[in-house]
């Protein structure tokens, strides 16, 4: 996995710019970062962690007061984070639960990256390890872990003092909705009623304690009995319905089932 550190900030001498430039990135990421810069210009630098996922790449970013001051004693803000190319989004996503809580609660990485007005390179792994060690063991950290591991695919989110906020509900269908591995087995019973002169088909579960699953409409008796084709079509309709609900008709082969 090769995410790269980027940092938009200033030194006391030189004005705001990318001290650690972003690698070539998508327009969506560019627009997202521009919006974050506008927020930072308006003074919104509370350290909220944003994970933004575009079609081709992803970034983890936050705007924060770096704790340093420039020559006019103005606070230096820093927009800092990690850029992740497309190929590594999946492993990056899976290591986020360990990184994000620590990244949120740690101080700005500006002090690590800028010393005496000069930029100092820092290996990405070192930053990730530091964040992982710094992660508090609280319920927000546990919640983000569960939510991210439960999600099928990466989704954009923000992480702040109130925990995790997904931009959209992450797809977790495979785990929340029960899908049977094998279709359940059932019988179909034909009931002929002499008094009302009607017939219907009923599907019941297969086994010792059968319970009703579906039932066809009543069919009236003709002069010379019930028509065979009508019964056939009713049985076919019932089987389609059973198939939709995950049941399979097992014809009775005689003997004690």
């Amino acid at each position, binding site marked *: 996995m090769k995410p790269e550190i980027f940092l*938009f900030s*200033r030194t006391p001498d*030189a*004005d*705001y*710019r990318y001290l650690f430039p972003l690698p070539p990135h998508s327009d969506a990421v560019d627009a997202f970062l*521009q919006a974050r*810069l*506008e927020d*930072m*210009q*308006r*003074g919104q630098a509370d350290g909220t962690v944003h994970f933004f996922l575009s079609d081709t790449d992803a970034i983890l970013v936050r705007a924060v007061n770096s704790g340093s*001051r*420039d*020559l*006019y*004693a*103005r*606070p*230096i*803000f820093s927009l800092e984070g990690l850029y992740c190319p497309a190929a590594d989004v999946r492993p990056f996503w899976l290591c986020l639960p360990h990184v994000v809580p620590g990244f949120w609660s740690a101080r700005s990485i500006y002090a690590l990256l800028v010393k005496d007005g000069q930029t100092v390179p820092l290996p990405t792994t070192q930053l990730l390890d530091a964040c992982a060690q710094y992660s508090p063991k609280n319920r927000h950290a546990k919640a983000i872990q569960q939510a991210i591991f439960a999600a099928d695919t990466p989704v954009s989110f923000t992480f702040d003092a109130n925990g995790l906020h997904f931009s959209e509900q992450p797809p977790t269908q495979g785990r929340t909705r029960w899908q049977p591995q094998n279709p359940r087995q059932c019988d179909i019973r034909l009931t002929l009623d002499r008094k009302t002169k009607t017939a219907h088909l009923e599907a019941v579960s297969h086994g010792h304690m059968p319970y009703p699953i579906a039932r066809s409409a009543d069919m009236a008796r003709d002069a010379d009995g019930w028509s065979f084709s009508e019964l056939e079509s009713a049985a076919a309709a019932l089987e389609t319905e059973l198939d939709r609900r995950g049941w399979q008709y097992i014809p009775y082969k005689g003997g004690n089932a």
Partner: protein
Amino acid sequence: MSKIIVTAVGVSGSGKSNAYGAIMELLKVRRRDSYYLTACGATPEERLRNSGIINRYADINQGFISTGTMITTEFPFAFGGHFRPDVPTYPLLDMPLIDYSGGLLKTMLNEESEEASRLLHRIIDTDVLLLFADANILSEEGGVEPARQQIALEINTIFEILSTERDTDFVSKPRTVLLMLTKCDSSLVPQTLKDNHFHGLVNRALQVFDPTVRFCINQPGWKIAVVPTSTCGDGNSNSWRDNNGVYHSEMTAPPQPYGFDIGILYGVMNELENRVRLGYDDSEEPPEQIEHKSGFVSKFQWRHILQRLAGQENEQISLYRQYVGNLHSILDPLCGTQIIEV
């Protein structure tokens, strides 16, 4: 609508962003002398949207803009006046203002950057240039040379390069340059420099920006003036310098900005006067019946001659004339005290 381009040029920390706050406060909120700034736009929807953009940045009453500028912002302003009942009150000119991080000037001198080159071209196109000089740094004990290194080096170099360029529009068009002395309320400025309407400070600023000032004086049609300004107003702030040479300041009372509106109005006045004198207006190109032959008179003059011959004056030009008259009546009494023409 025709356009007047006003560009602020100053190094990081010279007070550009706060100046925009003050300009909005003076010309958008308080509306001194019946001149005003409002949002520009072709339709009411666009004007409302632009007004929202401006308001997001404009609230000077929140205090100093206490962080450095990180992104380039364009304020879509329009300038107008309602000083006489027969003058229409709708805006006369579009006046987009642009705020950027002052470090761009340094970038411009050292490396290739798209943003820096955009700023340079804006400076080349500009009608009114506002040069920013920090009064704190001008009044430092070291004298002229250290201050020049800190705040004027980039600006002087840019002027030097642009003035020696052969085919550029920069020198061919009359312009107005205003040297804005910011932070004049600072308690770090010694009284000797403040006396007699900042006489000492103005002299020092002229020395610091010496190559630029000399260039502007020598250009025919160019005007240069110095305006002492402050965002906080005298006595509303507290400034000090710590042992590391870092300037600190805090606002102690609601801001009472001054000077910035005078600078803008002076710039507009001169630009409009030029347009009246040379008979041009960039809103629409008047049809030229007789073809202009280059070499004798400039295009501006030629158009003016044609209009004179036809005995008609553009409606916009006559509006300019009225504005110029009124602006003279306001600004002429201030010359020598609040605005010092060089």
